[in-house]
């Protein structure tokens, strides 16, 4: 645990000390604000809860894309600069390296979440929303973020190049987004499975203020599998 915290602390400090993290978050906030203004804020009369739900929908997409960019450096950069040798030759378990990096990225993603709070606050100022809805929405965003960062960490473990890592993770996230399209050519029970694989069908409850264990489990499982895969890749690298 101490090692996970050590790695996470250094990684988070690195996000805070270098420009790239801030730039990614600034772009995310800019697009999020733009979309909020253009689509969530209504020209016509709309319930506050609907505005909030739309806000969460947009922010979830941006979170996923942003997470891919935030996580692309996690392991790829270590391999590119050779600092992975330091971690490999230190008394660390590979899972500690992966977890430390994952939590650091998640911590930095919270900076983004915190910066978006003004939008629900605006909705609250001009309408009426429940705190529970806001909480459920942000829990959903955190889960989407965690799953995407985990996939990003896995993509980042596969290559030395951050660009390739981002492309790989992006493709994996895109697959989880668009796999429902397969329902058009599949029969039951495959249709059911493919539908349940798409992340947004699980996010739908959160955006409207509902927390279901099965949806939490889905994101937890994706996160776990991706982090597990990243750990195995890191272990396998020692053989080549």
């Amino acid at each position: 645990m101490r090692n996970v915290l050590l790695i996470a602390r250094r990684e988070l400090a690195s996000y805070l000390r270098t420009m790239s993290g801030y730039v990614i978050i600034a772009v995310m906030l800019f697009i999020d604000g733009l979309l909020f203004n253009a689509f969530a804020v209504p020209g016509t009369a709309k319930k506050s809860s609907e505005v909030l739900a739309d806000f969460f929908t947009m922010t979830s997409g941006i979170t996923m894309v942003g997470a891919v960019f935030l996580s692309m450096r996690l392991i790829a950069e270590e391999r590119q600069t050779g600092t992975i040798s330091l971690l490999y030759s230190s008394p660390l378990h590979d899972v500690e390296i992966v977890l430390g990096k994952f939590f650091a990225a998640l911590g930095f993603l919270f900076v983004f979440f915190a910066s978006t709070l003004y939008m629900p606050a605006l909705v609250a100022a001009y309408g009426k929303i429940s705190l529970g809805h806001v909480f459920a929405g942000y829990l959903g965003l955190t889960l989407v973020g965690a799953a995407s960062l985990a996939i990003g960490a896995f993509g980042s473990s596969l290559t030395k190049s951050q660009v390739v890592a981002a492309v790989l993770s992006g493709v994996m996230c895109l697959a989880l987004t668009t796999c429902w399209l397969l329902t058009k050519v599949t029969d039951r029970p495959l249709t059911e499975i493919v539908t349940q694989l798409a992340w947004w069908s699980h996010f739908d409850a959160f955006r409207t203020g509902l927390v279901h264990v099965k949806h939490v489990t889905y994101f937890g499982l994706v996160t776990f599998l991706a982090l597990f895969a990243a750990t195995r890749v890191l272990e396998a690298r020692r053989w080549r």
Partner: protein
Amino acid sequence: MIQVEGLTKYYGERAAIRDLSFTIEKGEVIGFLGLNGAGKSTTLKVLGCVLLPTSGKVLIDGYDVAKDPHEIRKRIGFLPDAPPLYDEMTVEGYLRFVAELRGVTTADVPARVADVMKKTSITDRKDDVIGSLSHGYRQRVGVAQAMVHNPRLLILDEPTGGLDPVQIVEMRELIRALKGEHTVLVSSHILSEISQICDRYLVIQQGEIIARGTEEDLSKLLGGAGVVEIDIKGPAQVAVEALKKVPGVKDVTVARLDDRLASLRVDTAEDVRGELVRALVQADIWVLRIDRGATRLENIFLKLTHGKEAA
């Protein structure tokens, strides 16, 4: 301390090292010599627990790299060929991080970090961001990170790589100072850079050890104590005649002749520098310089590696 038996490492189809076996005793400084691509870095990476061997046994302090890598990692300090530095950290912050990572207790960290910064002469740059350091300083921070947890075994892969002559001398002094306290394994492809600091050498070529032993052993292996270079003032022919009469001299050649100054190369079977000077002085020749060929180990190495290729 280190026991390596039949170590083999394949990268895909290609064997980077093949059936290496050697042992290293506690407190020794071992020079690991080889051309680029000979398999030095791969061997050191296996010893540093960065890579796992394809086959063979590597025991460090009685622990197996494949079974107890954790125990080994606590006991070693590893400097890869490119120092593993985080550019955005300060020197002190980075060394603190590495110390904690390698299991130094929180209470001991400041003292350990201060100690290695002093030993590697980087204390004055402790608040600098690593990305702003020159190559020499980066290399020193690299050595500092390898020894911050006071490991028993230090593995330094080309610590003198890319340094200027003054920095090379400083790095050699640093490694020499580590002797006794630590077992040190240092690699290089430029032999004069490590020729005076090692107790023993392992020469590796195409993934195999082709020679081992002290500098003396290696030169004996090639039949001869090597070359002595002498600069003289006086008639070169007289000097050559005088030197040839000294017992133990096999051959004398004039390397350079310039008016009354000459450089001679004397092939000797043993160290007879004293007799050589006496002979020259008695022949009324001025001796301006005498040296056991500065590139001595280099010659040995070239002969060894080229001989291998020819065979």
